[in-house]
């Protein structure tokens, strides 16, 4: 279902293709492959079977009653993408892209990763399908997420620490693009979020929209109603677009994206691109960007490596501008409060990325009160963040 202006890969003024000419052929090849696959019963059945027997779909819906006591008594429903194989929503996209890679006859995939979730998912899909896998990861992030680096290596991937620029996710994407320009004939770039040049924002969304499709049915079955609001954290925005998309045509459902405010948007040390950025071009698409007056990208800051990105998917930029979705910023401190609260009230350790959505639920629940039904995308589990959280809360290791 295409409810948005998606002509030639644009969402209003956003999206498009701003890439070296060398990549155009590969982007067109990919676009043709994904369009063909969308209506190919063999592809659809293959992916559905993988999701059933490998990912563990459909993911369940958990009602968080004790957590809800802190959220104004609103009904809190968690879409448990953390229970997917590899521990986050990222697997939805990589399995789809890995199948496309095989169809295009390519044998090697490259990926970028911030928190390591997409890198782990990519390495997993590559292992499953017998593809060579190289993951680019900012050197700073390899230190913050050493456990995920080890996981990727165990899965047979090569992890290349990126030492250019700010040594985080944005530089990992730059380095992956350079690899792709050089090796495009044999290599597929398994981009991990709904950003990048067309067709990535549309394709990655389409692989994640199953989250919203399943949860819409699940919420209706449980409550007999549509949710009052759907909440998700937004870095690049893949889990958010995945859960939002099916609800875009339900105007009564509020769509709320929670960005990372880091130390606070007013401090300049944040990753809240829509809240604190301006329209520009980064990594192949026009979108909101954290940039200075010369158009140079400003480094983002967040306790969450997965949200630490100075751009955002172009469809989010569009949903914001037309007023269909709202975006709020959650500080590190607010996110970590919600993180601890979910651990202690529900026995679920969320990813720190996801904790931003949970902090949003605390705010929105208190604003709307007990009649509200809030659907939250619990996009990832927090095992990878235990070290960071222990340090944050002063738990000796």
């Amino acid at each position: 279902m295409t409810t948005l202006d998606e002509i030639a890969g644009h969402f209003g003024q956003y999206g498009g293709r701003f890439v070296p000419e060398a990549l155009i052929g590969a982007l067109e090849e990919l676009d043709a492959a994904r369009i063909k696959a969308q209506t190919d019963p063999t592809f659809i059945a293959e992916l559905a079977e993988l999701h059933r027997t490998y990912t563990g779909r459909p993911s369940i819906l958990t009602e968080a009653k004790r957590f809800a006591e802190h959220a104004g008594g609103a009904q809190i429903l968690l879409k448990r993408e953390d229970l997917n194989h590899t521990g986050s929503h990222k697997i939805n996209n990589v399995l789809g892209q890995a199948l496309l890679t095989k169809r295009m006859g390519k044998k090697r995939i490259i990926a970028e990763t911030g928190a390591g979730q997409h890198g782990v998912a990519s390495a997993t899909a590559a292992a499953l399908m017998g593809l060579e896998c190289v993951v680019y990861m900012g050197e700073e992030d390899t230190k913050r997420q050493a456990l995920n680096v080890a996981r990727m290596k165990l899965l047979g991937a090569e992890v290349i620490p990126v030492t250019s620029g700010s040594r985080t996710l944005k530089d990992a994407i730059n380095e992956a693009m350079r690899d792709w320009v050089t090796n495009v004939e044999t290599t597929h770039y398994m981009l991990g979020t709904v950003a990048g040049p067309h067709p990535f924002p549309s394709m990655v969304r389409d692989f994640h929209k199953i989250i919203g499709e399943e949860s819409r049915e699940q919420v209706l079955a449980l409550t007999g109603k549509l949710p009052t609001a759907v909440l998700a954290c937004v870095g690049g925005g893949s889990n958010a677009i995945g859960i939002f998309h099916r609800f875009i045509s339900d105007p009564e459902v509020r769509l709320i994206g929670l960005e990372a405010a880091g130390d606070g948007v007013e401090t300049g040390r944040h990753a809240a691109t829509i809240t604190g950025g301006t329209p520009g071009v980064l990594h192949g698409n026009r979108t909101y960007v954290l940039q200075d007056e010369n158009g140079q990208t400003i480094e983002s800051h967040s306790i969450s490596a997965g949200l630490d990105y100075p751009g955002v998917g172009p469809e989010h930029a569009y949903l914001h501008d037309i007023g269909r979705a709202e975006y709020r910023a959650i500080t590190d401190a607010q996110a970590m409060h919600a993180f601890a609260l979910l651990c202690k009230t529900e026995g679920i350790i969320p990813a720190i990325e996801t904790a931003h959505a949970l902090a949003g639920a605390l705010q929105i629940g208190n604003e709307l009160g007990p009649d509200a039904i809030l659907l939250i995308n619990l996009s990832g589990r927090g095992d990878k963040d235990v070290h960071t959280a222990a340090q944050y809360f002063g738990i000796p290791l």
Partner: protein
Amino acid sequence: MSTPLDDLFVKVRSENRAALIAYIPAGFPTIEGCKKVIQAFVEGGVDAIEIGFPYSDPVMDGPTIQAAADQSLSQGTNAADVFAALKVATDSGVPAVVMTYWNPIEKYGVEKFAQSIAANGGSGVITPDLTIEESTGWKSAVEKNEINPIYVVAPSTSAQRLPQVTSRCGGFVYAASLMGVTGTRAAVSSGAPDLVARIRETTELPVAVGLGVSTREQAKGVAGYADGVIVGSAFIKAMQDAPNEAEGLKSVKELAQQLSLGVREGR
């Protein structure tokens, strides 16, 4: 109306040789040092100069130009510095263009950017990540200001797409000699002559080859089939490898002299 760059290619064609086009990012090694590099280019006999607008996320550039851009940006290089460097080049009588990723143009203002290029005597702008599909606003800005829009084509550009891109170009067509990022290489890609031949089937415009050229021999080889030879990373390396700025400038001038012989030996 023709730009100084258009006139240059008429001249080098009449001399039956290729043009040497030298690249330096504004603000490298310093804002003042860049102006001295431009002077060394002129003294070394380059035919045209490309001033780079350093950018935080240069996905088409290899480690050498990335490091130069970082060094330049750490000194706060901005659009005004780029135009000042451009003016140093054009004031010395050498045709000059700016090479930049798209976002700095968009942030500066598309129309205003083209105006500033023209106001500083610039002949055009090379835009390595602006696809023709996104170039509508830019097309009218360059036409209005009578400067050359220079697009890059790659070995992977399809036969169907090639004329669409070259018909948008002015000044010359930038042929990326290989699939990859900027940087010096032991040999110029064997695919380059093929690409140039394919481009010539679509346009009368001059064709300049970039990516991987660093020596007189390589320049001579490329000059055998192209109208222009673009050298960037080799000049930056000459500055980076020198013990001090004066020595670096000397190497830049010597390299320019060698390459300038090379572009005259190809045919």
